[in-house]
C-alpha cells in the first residue's frame, strides 16, 4: 500500500489547486463573472488548505487542524454558492456565514473540549462529504439544464472525491481508519488520488463550461441580431407595400391632379401654335404662353416628384425632418381626393418649422394614412373639415389631426392599430398598425381619441423633437 507518499501528494494537490484556478482565471479573462471569481477563489482556498495539511507536522496544531478545517468548508461553501448563483438560486450570504460559524464551533468544541480526534475526523468527513454531494447535485443540474458535458464531468469527479471521503468516514466509524489524514492508509490514498483527479478535471471542466456558455451566448446574440435585422427589413418592406397600396388607391385622383397642368400645357401650346401660324401674337404674348407652359410643366413634375418620393423603396434613414413640410407635401397627394369628397383641409403654416429626427418617407406615410382615414370619416358628414396642427411642446413634437367625422366608438378606440383590424369592406387593416410601429420606431406614439365636445376624432402623433 505504499503507492503514494500522502504528504507529497497533498503538497502537489495544494500546488495544483493554487495553479489551476489561477490559470482558469487567466483563461476566462473575457467572461469573469462573480461566479467565476467565487469558483476560482474556492479553488485557491483548497490549494492553501491542502498545502497546510501536507506540512501538518511542522506547523502549529490550530493552523493545521482548525484553520484547514474551516478553509476546506468555506471553499466548498463558496463553490456551492458559485453554482447556485449560476442556477439563480443563491443562498443568502448571512446563512452561509452562520452555517460556517456553527460548524466551526462544533468542530473546535469536539477537538479542544472533548479531545476526541476520531469524532472530530468523522464530523469533518461527514460535513465535507455532504457539501460535496450537494456540489455534485448542483453541477449535475447545470449539466442537464445547459446540456453541458463539462458540468457533468465536474459532477462526476467531485462525486468521486465525495465517495472517497465517505469511504474514509466509514473506515473511521469501523475503527480501521486513522484520524490523521496523512497516515498511509487505503482511505487516505484514495482520497489523495481523487483530489488529484478533481483538481485537474474540475478546473478544466469549469473552464470548458464557461467557454461553452460564452459561445452559446454569442450564438444567441447573433441569432437575435439576425432576427432583429430580419424584422426591420420585413417592416420596411411592409411599409413600402403599404405606401404602394395607398398610392394605388389614390391613383385615379392623382391622375386627375396630373391632368390639370397637362391640360393647361396643351391648351397654351395650341393657342401659341395657332397664333404663330397667322402671326396673331407679338413676341411678348408668345413669351407669356411659353412661360405658362414652363410653369405648368414644373407643376406636373412636382406632382410626379411627390409620388416618386413617396413610393421610393427606402432603407430607413435618419435625418432632420421638418414636420410641417412633410404634412404639406403629403396633403398634396390627397388634395384631389379631398376636393372630390368636398373636404376642406386646413394645413399648418409652412413658415414655421417643427424639427424631428427620422425618415421623411416613413413619417409622411403616417400622415397619409391618418389623412386618408380622416377624409373617409368626414365624407358622409354635413361639415367636412380636417385640421392639422403641428406644434412643439417642451421636448416633444406634436401633430394633431382634428376631423369633423363621427368620432370613434369605444370598440374602435380599443382596437385601432391592431393588425388586420379594419372597418373598410376592402381594407387590409394594416395602415394604422404600420403607422403606429413607425411612430414607435421613431421613439414616439400615434394615439387616437375623441374630441371632448364630441365634434370628431383627434389623432395625435407624438415624436421626440430635435
Amino acid at each position, binding site marked *: 500500500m505504499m503507492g503514494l507518499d500522502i504528504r507529497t501528494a497533498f503538497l502537489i494537490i495544494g500546488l495544483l489547486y493554487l495553479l489551476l484556478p489561477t490559470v482558469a482565471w487567466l483563461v476566462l479573462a473575457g467572461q469573469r463573472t462573480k461566479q467565476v471569481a467565487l469558483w476560482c477563489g474556492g479553488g485557491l482556498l483548497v490549494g492553501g488548505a491542502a498545502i497546510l495539511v501536507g506540512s501538518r507536522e511542522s506547523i502549529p496544531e490550530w493552523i493545521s487542524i482548525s484553520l484547514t478545517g474551516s478553509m476546506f468548508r468555506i471553499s466548498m461553501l463558496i463553490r456551492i454558492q458559485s453554482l447556485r448563483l449560476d442556477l439563480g438560486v443563491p443562498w443568502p450570504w448571512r446563512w452561509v456565514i452562520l452555517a460556517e460559524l456553527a460548524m466551526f464551533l462544533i468542530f473546535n468544541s469536539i477537538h479542544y473540549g472533548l479531545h476526541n480526534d476520531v469524532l472530530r475526523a468523522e464530523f469533518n468527513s461527514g460535513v465535507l462529504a455532504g457539501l460535496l454531494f450537494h456540489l455534485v447535485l448542483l453541477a449535475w443540474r447545470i449539466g442537464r439544464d445547459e446540456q453541458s458535458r463539462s458540468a457533468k464531468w465536474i459532477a462526476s469527479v467531485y462525486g468521486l472525491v465525495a465517495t472517497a471521503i465517505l469511504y474514509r468516514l466509514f473506515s473511521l466509524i469501523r475503527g480501521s481508519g486513522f484520524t490523521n489524514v496523512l497516515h498511509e492508509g487505503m482511505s487516505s490514498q484514495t482520497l489523495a488520488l481523487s483530489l488529484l483527479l478533481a483538481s485537474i478535471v474540475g478546473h478544466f471542466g469549469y473552464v470548458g463550461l464557461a467557454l461553452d456558455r460564452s459561445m452559446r451566448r454569442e450564438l444567441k446574440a447573433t441569432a437575435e441580431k439576425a432576427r432583429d435585422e430580419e424584422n426591420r427589413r420585413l417592416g420596411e418592406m411592409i411599409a413600402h407595400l403599404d405606401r404602394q397600396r395607398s398610392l394605388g388607391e389614390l391613383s385615379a385622383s392623382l391622375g386627375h391632379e396630373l391632368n390639370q397642368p397637362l391640360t393647361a400645357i396643351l391648351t397654351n401650346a395650341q393657342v401659341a401654335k395657332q397664333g404663330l401660324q397667322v402671326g396673331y401674337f407679338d413676341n411678348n404674348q408668345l413669351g407669356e404662353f411659353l412661360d405658362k407652359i414652363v410653369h405648368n410643366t414644373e407643376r406636373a413634375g412636382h406632382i410626379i416628384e411627390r409620388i416618386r418620393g413617396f413610393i421610393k423603396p427606402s432603407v430607413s434613414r435618419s435625418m432632420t425632418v421638418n414636420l410641417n413640410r412633410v404634412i404639406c407635401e403629403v396633403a398634396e397627394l390627397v388634395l384631389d381626393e379631398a*376636393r372630390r369628397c368636398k373636404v376642406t383641409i386646413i394645413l399648418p403654416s409652412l413658415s414655421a418649422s417643427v424639427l424631428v429626427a427620422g425618415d421623411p418617407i416613413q413619417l409622411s406615410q403616417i400622415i397619409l394614412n391618418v389623412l386618408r382615414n380622416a377624409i373617409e370619416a368626414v365624407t358622409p358628414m354635413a361639415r367636412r373639415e380636417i385640421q392639422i396642427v403641428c406644434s412643439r411642446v417642451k421636448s416633444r413634437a406634436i401633430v394633431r389631426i382634428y376631423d369633423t367625422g363621427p368620432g370613434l366608438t369605444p370598440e374602435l378606440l380599443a382596437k385601432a392599430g391592431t393588425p388586420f383590424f379594419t372597418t373598410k369592406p376592402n381594407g387590409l387593416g394594416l395602415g394604422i398598425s404600420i403607422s403606429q410601429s413607425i411612430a414607435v420606431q421613431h421613439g414616439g406614439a400615434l394615439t387616437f381619441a375623441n374630441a371632448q365636445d364630441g365634434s370628431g376624432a383627434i389623432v395625435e402623433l407624438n415624436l421626440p423633437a430635435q
Partner: protein
Amino acid sequence: MKPQTKHRHSVTLSDCELATRCARGRVVIIDDDTEILSALAALLEFFGYACETYSSATSYLQVVNYIRPLFPGPCCILCDVKMPELDGLELQSRLAEFDDIPVLLMSGSSGVPEAVSAFHGGAVDFLTKPIHGDVLMAAVAKALAISTLRCNQRERQSTLATRIASLTERERDIAHRAAAGQTNPAIAAELGIALRTVKLHRQRAMEKIGANNIADLIRIADEGKL
C-alpha cells in the same frame, strides 16, 4: 364682361369688338384651376369667341341670376366636373331649372358614371382633359349652334304668340276648328253663322298669323298652342 349698372355709356372700340365676338358666340368657362381657366380663355378668344371665366360654380350662379346687359349672340357653358363646393354635374342640374343654355362638361378622369350622368343631365358633350384644341372647338361650335337653334326657336315662338294674341275670339275659334280638320260649312252649321262669315274670319286669321295655306295653319296651331 362685367355687369354694367349705368343706363347709358358711350360705345367704345372694345365694345364693338366684344359685340362682334358675342355675335359669334359667348363661352362661360368654369374651372377651379386658374391656369386652365386662362389657357382655355386664350384659346377661345383666339378663335374669336367672347369668354367669361369663373373659378367656381357658385360664383357663376351668383352672377347668372342678375339681369345684365349682354350683347346678343349664342352662348354656352364649358365647365369642369370636379370642383370643390358645387361640382359641374350639380351646376348643370341647377341651371336646368331656369335656363336652357347648352352645357359642355370636362373632366380629368374619364369616369363612365360621370359621363353617363352628364349626358342624362342634358350635356351637349363630355370632354376628357387634356382637351385637344380641335375637339374643343368642334364641341364649342356644336354647343353654340344648339344655342342659336334654341334662340331662334324661342324667337319664333314669341312672334307666334304675339300673332296669336292679336286674333279675336271668333277668329281663334274658327282657325282652331279649321286646323282640326272641320270644313267651312261644318263650322258654319255648328256655330250657326253664315258660310261667308266663316270664310271671312278664316281668311283674316290666316293673314294675322302668317299662314299661307291650311298646312301652315295646322303647323302653327301645333307649335303655338292655338
